[in-house]
């Protein structure tokens, strides 16, 4: 076992040389090592190696909000050995956000299958008097200044969730963008901002540790990771529906049979108890799907976020 993993490590070092090598599948991630998508990718790669009977390498191609990874995959040989694991942002939000995107989801990619669902949870720090989402919203309406809420950047899912919440309830919220989740978490703990939406995966430790209070889950159903936290809909707030899902995409001309066999392997991997439990412990909800289901989800989310971005005049030059 040990020897095997040493071999895998060596294979990683030679990853660039091994591109054309038989039996190596590249899992391209548009984020640097250590981020939530990368963590899911590495967990998946380990199990997928067993299912595919070959090595699955995680290749980090960060930059340009996912466009660098997207182009890398789009230009790869469409033989099923290069896959893109992307969160919802690069595939369903950025097309509406950026006027000149270097890739086109419909033209350049074919969906393989969804991997996990990541719903957003609304949190505040333990000093905030609000015990639920309704109280948080009510407080924002009577406060002198709009309530500052952090996000992981302009056009990120947490940002769009803030816009949805403001639209649904008329809450007076001030969007404060950060470079990623860590500085936003720190400022929320320090009381510089009053609340934020974030993937459950990144917040579950601070919630269980009693530093942050979960006010509501922004999804139709409660999360298995935080079963005690009510959904926003249960608290009478409709229309805040976020899912920062991660899905696998292959280059457009990948043969349908190849896509089907990859989908089967991914589904099998996600249904393995070891991986299932691991992902759930991360705070992500394993959610395999067929390629057609992912295509439908992509279309629905692209339309949903596109509408919101247009209505709220969120623009990026």
């Amino acid at each position, binding site marked *: 076992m040990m020897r095997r993993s040493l071999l895998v490590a060596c294979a990683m070092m030679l990853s660039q040389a091994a591109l054309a090598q038989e039996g190596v599948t590249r899992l391209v991630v548009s984020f640097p*090592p250590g981020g939530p998508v990368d963590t899911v990718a*590495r967990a998946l790669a380990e199990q997928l190696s067993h299912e595919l009977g070959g090595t699955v390498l995680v290749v980090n191609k960060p930059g340009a909000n996912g466009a660098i990874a997207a182009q890398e995959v789009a230009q790869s040989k469409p033989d099923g050995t290069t896959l893109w694991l992307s969160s919802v942002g690069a595939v369903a939000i950025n097309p509406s956000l950026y006027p000149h995107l270097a890739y086109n989801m419909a033209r350049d990619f074919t969906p393989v299958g969804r991997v996990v669902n990541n719903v957003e949870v609304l949190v505040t720090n333990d000093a905030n008097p609000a015990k639920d989402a309704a109280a948080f919203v009510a407080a924002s309406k009577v406060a002198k200044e709009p309530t*500052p809420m952090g996000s992981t950047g302009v056009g990120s899912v947490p940002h769009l969730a803030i816009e949805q919440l403001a639209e649904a309830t008329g809450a007076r919220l001030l969007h404060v963008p950060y470079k990623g989740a860590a500085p936003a978490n*720190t400022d929320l703990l320090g009381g510089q901002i009053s609340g934020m939406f974030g993937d459950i995966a990144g917040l579950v430790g*601070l919630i269980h540790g009693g530093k942050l209070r979960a006010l509501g889950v922004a999804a139709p159903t409660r999360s298995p990771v935080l079963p005690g936290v009510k959904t926003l809909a249960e608290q009478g707030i409709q229309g805040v529906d976020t899912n920062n899902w991660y899905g696998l995409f292959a280059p457009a001309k990948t043969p349908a049979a190849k896509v089907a066999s990859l989908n089967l392997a991914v589904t099998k991997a996600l249904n393995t108890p070891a991986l299932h439990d691991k992902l759930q412990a991360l705070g992500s909800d394993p959610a395999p799907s067929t390629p057609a289901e992912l295509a439908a989800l992509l279309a629905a989310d692209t339309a949903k976020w596109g509408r919101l971005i247009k209505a709220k005049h969120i623009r990026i030059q």
Partner: protein
Amino acid sequence: MHQTLSDLWFGFGVALQPTHLMWSVFGVLVGNLIGVLPGMGALTTISILLPLTYVIAPVPAILMLAGIFYGSQYGGAIGAILLNLPSHPPHAVTCLDGYPMTRQGKGGTALGITMMSSFFAASFGIVVMIFLSPLLVRVAFKFGPTEISAIMLLGLLAGGTMARGSPLKGVAMTAFGLLCGVVGTDVNSGTSRFSFGLAGLSDGVELGALCMGLFGVADFLVSVGKESAQVGHARVRMRDMRPSRAEIRQAMPAMLRGTLVGTLFGAMPGTGPTITTFIAYALERRIARKPERFGHGAIEGVASPEAASHSKTQIDFIPTMSLGIPGDAVMALILGALILKGIQPGPQLITEHPDIFWGLIASFWIGNVLLVLLNVPMIGVWVKLLQVPYKYLFPSAIFFICVGVFSSHNALFDVGMVGVAGVIGAVFIALDFPVSPVVLGYVLGPMLEENFRRALLISRGDLSVFIQRPISATFVTISALVLLFQIVAYLRRLRRPAAALSSGEFVTEE
């Protein structure tokens, strides 16, 4: 207190278990070697070795990863001192005096002082981590965008003293650094600035590429073909490697001050290690009796930033371990590894997994002892490296730079960036412009801008917030005093120009 000591005892028990110790040794060894290679960072190494952790238990896994992290820091200084190649950006400032020392044949001494400072500062950081974690976490939360921008303002002013020679050139270089820092996506609007439509620039200029280019590659381009470029010396005697007693006495106070700077910056989340080392250096130069020695092989200029970098590194583990909020990308990766092992980082980690928390702390210290034992005998070997003919040494260094810079983002674009930075740096050096303020401007400027705008966003545009909050008010006041002091000094110098020139007052050094 008693509880802490018994926890620590327990931690040493965990860390000294043979398998744990073995992985820890493996980690520091790999980290140390990787750190020496120009351009290879801890992030790349850890992501390559991550699959190894799948098959070993959580405790040895994290001990190994942490070992790689701080091991690479020890290695990073070696390239900076001997070859002017800062393989890790925080060490860029060490080049300023470490490399001149090498050229004077005192490379071994510089390395010896570095090891001493690193070990002392790391040990101090570990003690702070053990006894003051809860306090530091509370302090950290007091630093919001307002406070951080006030500190950055002071840092930028203090950085003005870094440059040697013409003050105008120093300011120009800082401004150039600020411009480099502006490139990339603006966090407040999401707009891509000065990226010229290049996807590779949309996340900004890569700090590692900038440092490698401006220091190592530029120096290479300027000195290539020149006889004087030969840094190697006919004989390297063991006697020259050990710092003399006088040198240690000289370095000691600088080491202490550097450690304190590192500790202070460690308490402030979001201030990177590069800023810390630059501030430590600037402070050293500012209070030195003869600041003109700096840049020509002042031993304090090596001891202080190296100490600062190591205490900062250790203390940076506090938010990572006690809150589960990663301080930087490497920490995020280490936390990711823990998560993959089914361990959720967060405030509950200390109580739920005391073996990880206390074992890690104990292994920090064991690892640092190992690194000293490993590196002190190696100093001779590293210095011998300089005897490799220049025509082989530098091309191979460039090769490693390319590999290293490529591997950090898997992007060929970044390799090109090193080349461009190298050419720009060579032009600057040829025109006698100092390059270090570029790096300072690069790291401080974007942070000042980001936090300043965020502070004003939260205060709804009310500038008085900077003097209403006590911490920020303190720093703003100090900044104002620094400015006032400079102006007074300048006016006084105008009145008696001849005297100031001959007495070598610090103002002439600006």
